[in-house]
């Protein structure tokens, strides 16, 4: 051999040093740093744009597939209390759980959140939505009995001032008085008064002595102040607050009441002595009265199961399973559709990919072997569909394929099919495959063309000069070199097909729709975004797995777009 690699000039071992004595690697890094920084600056606008408008929303969307904070946020007390409840007992939860649920539901219905929660839980257990709606309308009356009885003991119980004196932090009371005075002064001086009311604070001891009451009242005061813009010092507490007081007083000892100071002690002692003789009301009965289905342990089981902040429930739903209080179980058969839809999506995407290869390969071959002028003209024909609206193209297929459409008319006219036996070419899988093959064909032709363009004609000539027939030259020499184009085209078409939405929606009927149509349904119609996100995540995972498998089997460097 005349050519030999020349050895590098440096013969000494150890790290190579630059002229200034620093290691060469470090010098090189420093020299390239400015260049790298500039490259980063150049891509920064796009990178930020994509992060803000694309990656972040998608991440947020995917996060919804496991996120379940709505239950714990809307029913915080219930979520804690219900942990001990056993749905298999066949009974409703204890009064304590129901009381917690009552406070939560009252707050939620004041904030108009209970319907949203009902909708969420309805995904898991049908019927919950209407239960929440009905109970939400009545729940603020659930302590009425006790309010009346407390008022009978001492009418002061119905005074908002009594509650403020009992519950509020003395400092807050002082602030509140100052605020009121300032407001009146301003009014007298005819000045505008815009200062906000000081935020209500509980006094320290009350949460220990009357825990439920403190929690319920604080919630009431907060909602009155923050959400409704009212003055808690001028509002009657909700009836369930009286329920809480009743429940607290049943358990509290006289010693504890003494901590709250002499004024409160006097009132509370009187109430405390009276509660033993109060006429009681069963919360369970109140709920059953609102709707007898509250007696279904499944409802409470569902609340318990989904009371954690994160849930695999959406993912399980997405693969036709469900999370029940007893663990993971299959969905009822009439609700199992997702596995079937995934299988159908994969199968049809493969069919579309296959037909694109079969139809696209000869065209790409022709294009790449014609003189430039002719091939450019043909290329315009290939690209023409790109310049037409997707909707128009799909609608055109509707016109062509329907039973009274152009293709059937021609077949009948030619006598190939009888008038009564017109082919069903649309609103089924056939329709979707035909229309999507047409729409995705350019995505197969373009990478194939650009790869074939780079295969010099001398390879096939060489093969022929070596004695290969046209077919052998093509199959042994040309085809293997076009495989990267096939790979690129297949990946492109397959990935586009697997997430396609408009075309299956328009021509797929019921049997030709894809998983993406179901995702769209959950995004825009059923508003079950968590399930939509779970389905989307699974779809993404399937694509990534297939991509990985392709890399293992064929090698990703065997994919070329030209």
């Amino acid at each position: 051999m005349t050519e030999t690699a020349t050895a590098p000039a440096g013969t000494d071992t150890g790290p190579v040093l630059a002229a200034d004595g620093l290691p060469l690697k470090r010098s090189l890094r420093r020299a390239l740093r400015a260049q790298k920084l500039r490259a980063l600056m150049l891509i920064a606008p796009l990178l930020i744009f994509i992060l803000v408008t694309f990656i972040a929303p998608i991440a947020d969307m995917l996060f919804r597939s496991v996120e379940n904070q709505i239950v714990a946020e809307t029913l915080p007390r219930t979520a804690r209390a219900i942990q001990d409840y056993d749905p298999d007992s066949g009974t409703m939860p204890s009064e304590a759980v129901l009381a917690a649920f009552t406070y939560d539901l009252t707050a939620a219905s004041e904030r108009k959140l209970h319907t949203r929660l009902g909708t969420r839980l309805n995904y898991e257990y049908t019927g919950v939505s209407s239960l929440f709606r009905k109970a939400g309308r009545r729940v603020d009356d659930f302590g009425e009995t006790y309010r009346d009885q407390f008022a009978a003991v001492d009418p002061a119980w119905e005074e908002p001032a009594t509650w403020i004196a009992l519950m509020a932090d003395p400092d807050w009371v002082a602030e509140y008085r100052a605020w009121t005075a300032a407001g009146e002064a301003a009014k007298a001086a005819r000045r505008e008064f815009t200062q906000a009311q000081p935020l209500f604070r509980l006094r320290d001891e009350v949460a220990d002595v009357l825990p439920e009451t403190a929690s319920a009242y604080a919630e009431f005061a907060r909602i009155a102040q923050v959400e409704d813009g009212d003055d808690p010092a001028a509002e009657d507490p909700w009836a369930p607050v009286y329920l809480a007081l009743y429940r607290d007083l049943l358990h509290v000892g006289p010693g504890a009441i003494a901590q709250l100071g002499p004024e409160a002690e006097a009132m509370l002692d009187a109430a405390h002595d009276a509660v033993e003789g109060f006429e009681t009301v069963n919360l369970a009965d109140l709920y059953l009265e609102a709707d007898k289905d509250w007696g279904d342990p499944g409802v409470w089981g569902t609340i318990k199961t989904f009371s954690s902040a994160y849930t695999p429930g959406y993912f399980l739903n997405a693969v036709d399973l469900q999370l029940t209080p007893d663990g993971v179980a299959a969905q009822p058969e009439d609700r199992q559709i997702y596995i079937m839809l995934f299988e159908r999506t994969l199968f049809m995407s493969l069919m579309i990919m296959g037909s694109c290869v079969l139809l696209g390969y000869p065209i790409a071959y022709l294009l790449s072997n014609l003189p430039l002028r002719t091939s450019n003209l043909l290329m315009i024909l290939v690209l023409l569909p790109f310049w037409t609206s997707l909707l128009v193209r799909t609608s055109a297929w509707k016109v062509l394929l329907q039973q009274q459409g152009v293709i059937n008319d021609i077949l009948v006219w030619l006598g190939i099919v009888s008038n009564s036996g017109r082919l069903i070419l649309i609103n089924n899988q056939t329709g979707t495959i035909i229309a999507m093959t047409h729409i995705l064909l350019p995505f197969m032709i373009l990478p194939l063309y650009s790869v074939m363009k780079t295969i010099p004609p001398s390879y096939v000539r060489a093969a022929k000069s070596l004695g290969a027939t046209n077919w052998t030259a093509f199959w042994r020499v040309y085809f293997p070199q076009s495989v990267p184009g096939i790979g690129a085209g297949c990946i492109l078409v397959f990935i586009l097909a697997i997430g396609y939405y408009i075309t299956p929606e328009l021509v797929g009927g019921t049997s030709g729709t894809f998983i993406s149509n179901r995702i769209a349904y959950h995004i825009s119609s059923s508003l079950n975004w968590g399930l939509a996100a779970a389905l989307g995540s699974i779809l993404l995972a399937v694509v990534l797995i297939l991509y990985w498998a392709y890399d293992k089997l064929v090698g990703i460097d065997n994919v070329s777009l030209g």
Partner: protein
Amino acid sequence: MTGTSDGFVVFDRVQKSYDGETLVVKDLNLSIGKGEFLTMLGPSGSGKTTCLMMLAGFETATHGDILLDGKPINNIPPHKRGIGMVFQNYALFPHMTVAENLAFPLEVRKIGRADREAKVQRALEMVQMGAFGGRRPAQLSGGQQQRIALARALVFEPELVLMDEPLGALDKQLREHMQFEITRLAHNLGITTVYVTHDQTEALTMSDRVAVFNDGRIQQLARPDELYEKPVNSFVAQFIGENNTLLGRVKEINGTALVELDDGEVIDAIPVNVRNRGDRTLVSIRPERVEIDPKRLTPGAHLIHAEVLEFIYMGDIYRTRLRVAGNDDFVIKTRNAPDQRRLRPGEHIEIGWLPEDCRALDAP
């Protein structure tokens, strides 16, 4: 070797047109003997590659016959012609190993496995690449790929091998080495070779005969020495080697021609393709045939005055540009010998040449 009567490959009045308006190959008649190494030389667009492609079967002749071993092959598809071919960019199949590349022609000829492997190994040894069978073409250097391409064209033992500028992509040193290798192989194996190139040095050093193409025609078909020393027209004279030209008009013609140059100087020359008195002519003199020391010239030499314009030291030779008879591009080459003078620009000297080195050709 040069026996044209054998006619192993014959082009008989072959014409070729791509667009139906112009002819790229005009009335080509050529006969190549068995075992001959023939080079088609010409500038790009002269039709030489088209001729090769017609012979290989990738282009069809618009008119005329091409005969191989006496049989017309116009209608035989390329894969049945049994002609080995080396392509400009080697065209080694990138998805096959070297050995698979070499086995390919044997495989399509349905030669048994054992036989095939033996032949492949022999062919690899022949180009001194025996250890490279398992490599991919992309892992080889240009020179190595060149050898493999050669081995592949020879492995199925064709009687005719075509080479389309096979050394164009190599550097100078490697090219010279491969020129020698290819001629040695071709002669040792006794195969007929048709070689296409636009490099005249390659053509002169490798070939038994050279066909100089221009404008779709063979301008001259001759042995290399004859081609260099006795070009038959001004195109060949200027295309092959370096050449000094002086324009003038034929003053008298009988055996030798008397030419009056444009500045009035009258010189003797051998008439090659000038016929009549008064014809415009281009007189050609090779740079190495011009002598700057008139004492060395035999009597009868023509002496002429010259002014030195430029002196270039080139190592083995000196290259001097002179103004002679109004021509500023008159170049002479002198050997770098101890007694040789180094001329200085601005110097006025007498130079001379022999009339038999001076050829009066057609004026373009």
